[in-house]
């Protein structure tokens, strides 16, 4: 049984750029109770006059004791994400509440094949699942389909470039493809999911995360390929981000 959620003080340990507009932030959170891959946290910022703003962000990696990682994309004209990308420095404090969410999660005990479908910053909770699989030494076969604008908007680029047994990755570029790429730039298609995912009769667990329009489209395509709705778990990044 979990206790009721409380806000905890979190101190920035370090941060690193993922792309020109996204950073991974590593926080120390005294009392952190641990979490499952796919869960998220709420981050609250308070100004010196008491004004507050709060947003949700996915955890990007398994916990390292009381140390957690978030990867945050800057939303233009946003309120919280520009602060986390451009202002906060090591030693600064924010408040964090979590972990939360018990639906969009992958547990290392699960042996079922997994299809991960991420759009843009929707890669973050899926990356947490890939890292949790690696950390647990799981042999569950994973396939990742990562839809992104172009090569420069790739998160976790160096880490994903390392070959990993049991993890297949397909990059689906929507605007510009690297030279020599066979697939033309464009939105995710039925063929992408048929080739880069697992067939429905393998009974994979499917996780889809990204902007609302992307999630609806990808989930519809998975249904069209015969995946049952109860095996398709979705998480949307909506208009209230930032």
């Amino acid at each position: 049984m979990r206790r009721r959620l409380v806000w905890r003080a979190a101190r920035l340990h370090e941060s690193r750029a993922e792309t020109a507009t996204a950073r991974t932030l590593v926080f120390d959170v005294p009392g952190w109770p641990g979490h499952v891959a796919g869960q998220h946290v709420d981050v609250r910022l308070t100004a010196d006059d008491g004004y507050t703003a709060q947003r949700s962000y996915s955890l990007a990696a398994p916990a390292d004791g009381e140390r957690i990682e978030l990867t945050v994309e800057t939303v233009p004209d946003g309120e919280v994400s520009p602060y986390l990308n451009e202002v906060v420095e090591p030693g600064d404090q924010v408040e964090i509440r979590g972990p939360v969410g018990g639906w969009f999660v992958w547990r290392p005990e699960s042996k079922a094949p997994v299809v991960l479908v991420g759009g843009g910053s929707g890669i973050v909770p899926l990356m947490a699942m890939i890292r949790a699989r690696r950390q647990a030494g799981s042999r569950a076969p994973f396939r990742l389909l990562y839809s992104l604008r172009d090569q420069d908007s790739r998160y976790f680029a160096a880490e994903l470039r390392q070959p990993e047994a049991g993890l297949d990755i397909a990059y689906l570029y929507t605007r510009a493809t690297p030279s020599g790429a066979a697939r033309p730039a464009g939105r995710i298609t039925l063929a992408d999911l048929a080739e880069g995912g697992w067939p429905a009769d393998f009974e994979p667990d499917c996780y889809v995360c990204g902007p609302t329009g992307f999630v609806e489209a990808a989930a519809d395509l998975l249904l069209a390929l015969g995946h049952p709705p109860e095996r398709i778990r979705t998480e949307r990044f909506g208009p209230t981000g930032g």
Partner: protein
Amino acid sequence: MGIVSRGFRGRRREGGDELPPGQYLVEDFPVLSAGPTPRVPLDRWEFAIDTEDGQTHRWSWQEFMALPMQTPTVDIHCVTKWTKLGTTWEGVSLDVFFEDVESAAEYALVYSYGGYTTNLPLEELLDGKAWIVHSFDGEELEPRHGGPARLLVPHLYFWKSAKWVRGIRLLNEDSPGVWETAGYHNYGDPWREQRYEGD
């Protein structure tokens, strides 16, 4: 108060004397939604006033547009703490709609396309204090801001200014609306900071 994050200021700007307590100024026009945006074709749009004894007065879009228009410039105050100054609207005063309505009711429940409701004392809608508006800033009112037509009651928090307005039901007993049944104040005067039940 929670732990202060160094260097965090947020989007808000300082409020002045012209702002109700706890409000901050915005220049944009935030959109808050509680459901999908209704799309109402003008040839099927109507506005109605239903009296407490079962009479209904109806206006089609054409009839609405033929009524005398006003262009109020008012300040609007959202319960989520933003205030926008000097907004200009175009529409018809509710006094015009109520000219031929006979009623002894004290309460009004405003209802909208899409299912939204909000309640207020009938007198808050009369004497030049409220309008049904179809334009904002010289432009046709966008669906996300309540178009084709919304209620405008600027002296109360803006959730009382129902988007996509469809009608007003006159009642002898007060009947709390969508937000008034979920913790928000029944009356909602921004100058007395009546945000939540019990304020």
